[in-house]
């Protein structure tokens, strides 16, 4: 679609009309350039300095990155993000799709059930973290409850187990977000042409098969949106970690966002914090850009 081709006469008013879209977008563009990319550039510069308490501009080259490379805690945090992000996005998608498909079977009281699935999304990560911290607490929560109910040998102590604490974060995050994924897919399913399903049924295909082979593959854009929002949540899950485990036990459940925050703001290691932020962005960039590129390119040919 080309807007320019439509306008052939060039009166001043038309010229204004032609510039209007750009004018409308200009302030946002400026804000994005300064408020997102300018600030990223600034952080990038800081990562090459010896900044500690406050920004300074004495150049140390790649020293901060080298220190990051040697930092055990940084590696723990990075691995945790991979594990957490992968599991969280994967499980949320599976549960979300499953619930959406089930809800799409002309269920009575659908609106009510939908609301129940969706409401955790309304809560802040801080509230979610606080609630689950308590639920998963070995001395007070589910663990104690099941033992009170007579299940003597029961032991559920993932929250204090350095090897398993990340799964606790996944549980809480999935609880919060899978309902939203369900809503996205339910919306997508409602847009699917029912006659296709019926035609396939006439051909004798089973319902699960129809969904797997025909319906879900047609929901590519929904996957895209869900993936965007879930990755957004995974990267921002700072609040959840802060309120649920504060990175502990030890630093077993640290995430890069926590690492960056702690070093930049509480430990007076601003240069190191900036370097970690840049690596985080780099990783996001590496995963996201090819995907965005193909998505946007595809759209242009529509």
């Amino acid at each position: 679609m080309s807007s320019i081709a439509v306008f052939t006469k060039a009166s001043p008013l038309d010229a204004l009309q032609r510039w209007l879209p750009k004018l409308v977008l200009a302030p946002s563009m400026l804000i994005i350039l300064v408020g997102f990319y300018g600030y990223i550039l600034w952080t990038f510069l800081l990562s090459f300095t010896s900044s500690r308490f406050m920004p300074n501009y004495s150049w140390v080259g790649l020293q901060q990155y080298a220190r990051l490379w040697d930092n055990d805690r940084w590696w723990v945090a990075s691995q945790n993000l991979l594990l957490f992000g992968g599991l969280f996005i994967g499980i949320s998608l599976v549960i979300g799709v499953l619930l959406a498909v089930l809800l799409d079977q002309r269920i009575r009281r659908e609106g009510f059930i939908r609301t129940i699935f969706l409401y955790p999304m309304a809560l802040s990560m801080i509230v979610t973290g606080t609630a689950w911290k308590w639920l998963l607490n070995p001395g007070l929560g589910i663990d104690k409850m099941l033992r009170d109910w007579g299940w003597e040998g029961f032991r559920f102590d993932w929250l204090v187990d350095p090897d398993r604490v990340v799964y606790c974060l996944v549980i809480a995050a999935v609880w919060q977000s899978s309902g939203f994924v369900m809503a996205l897919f339910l919306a997508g399913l409602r847009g699917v042409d029912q006659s296709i399903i019926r035609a396939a049924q006439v051909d004798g295909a089973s319902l699960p098969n129809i969904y797997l082979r025909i319906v879900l593959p047609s929901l590519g854009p929904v996957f895209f949106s869900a993936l965007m929002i879930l990755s957004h949540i995974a990267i921002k899950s700072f609040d959840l970690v802060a309120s649920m485990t504060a990175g502990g036990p030890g630093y077993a459940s640290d995430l890069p966002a926590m690492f960056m925050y702690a070093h930049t703001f509480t430990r007076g290691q601003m240069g190191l914090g900036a370097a970690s932020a840049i690596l985080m962005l780099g990783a996001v960039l590496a995963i996201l850009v090819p995907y965005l590129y193909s998505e946007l390119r595809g759209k242009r040919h529509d």
Partner: protein
Amino acid sequence: MTKPVSLSRVAIYATLLAACAVYLIPLVIMLLTSFKSPEDIRTGNLLSWPEVFTAIGWLKAWDGVGGYFWNSVKITIPAVLISTVIGALNGYVLAMWRFRGSQLFFGLLLFGCFLPFQVVLLPASFTIGQLGLANTTSGLVLIHVVYGMAFTTLFFRNYYVSIPDALVRAARLDGAGFFTIFGRILLPMSTPIIMVCLIWQFTQIWNDFLFGVVFASGDTQPITVALNNLVNTSTGAKEYNVDMAAAMIAGLPTLVVYVLAGKYFLRGLTAGAVKG
């Protein structure tokens, strides 16, 4: 043929009900706990019924965070409205008036969705200070508008992309201008996506903690910061009933919005927000 079908129906209902229970349990526990006495919390377990229902937790919680409730309202409402308007206009341009570079802009904006906000705290506070907006609710509104823009634009752009070009092209040939087309044609059909955007932004901004704690102080703090101050005690016994009640108070507005307007949310998503 009827019997196996009804069996699978039972399985579907059973799965859905089990899922409902899982989703509801944390909320139920929070509610129960908020009405218990501290003694009761120590002796009972999570799902035990309160021995006596007491509102003392709620009263204490309201004392602690109630005063900040209105700050959150004052910050959230303008920020939600402004960012929605900007998102609508941006989305309109990006969908209907593409020009060289507009796709690049959109890509840049999308990437912005993934920016961890901790990165921008220092430069943003420098900017806010330069603008003379440090420690004001206006400063906080500005910040929320800027960093909420990426998502609002994404919502509207994706919605408008699904609207046939022919509508707009015809109006343009009739001589309708940029804003006329927006106001007369697109806006009237935007209700679903406006609802999605309002609900999303309301939740995001109301629940924000990071910007609130950094860019507001004292009397201008939003309720999430007050909640943190109440819950994160460094001395004094932990009063879980008060904590839970305060968390409920802080979460109530967004909960009400989801419960009451949830169906508009889904309707909006259905109407096209999810079509990439």
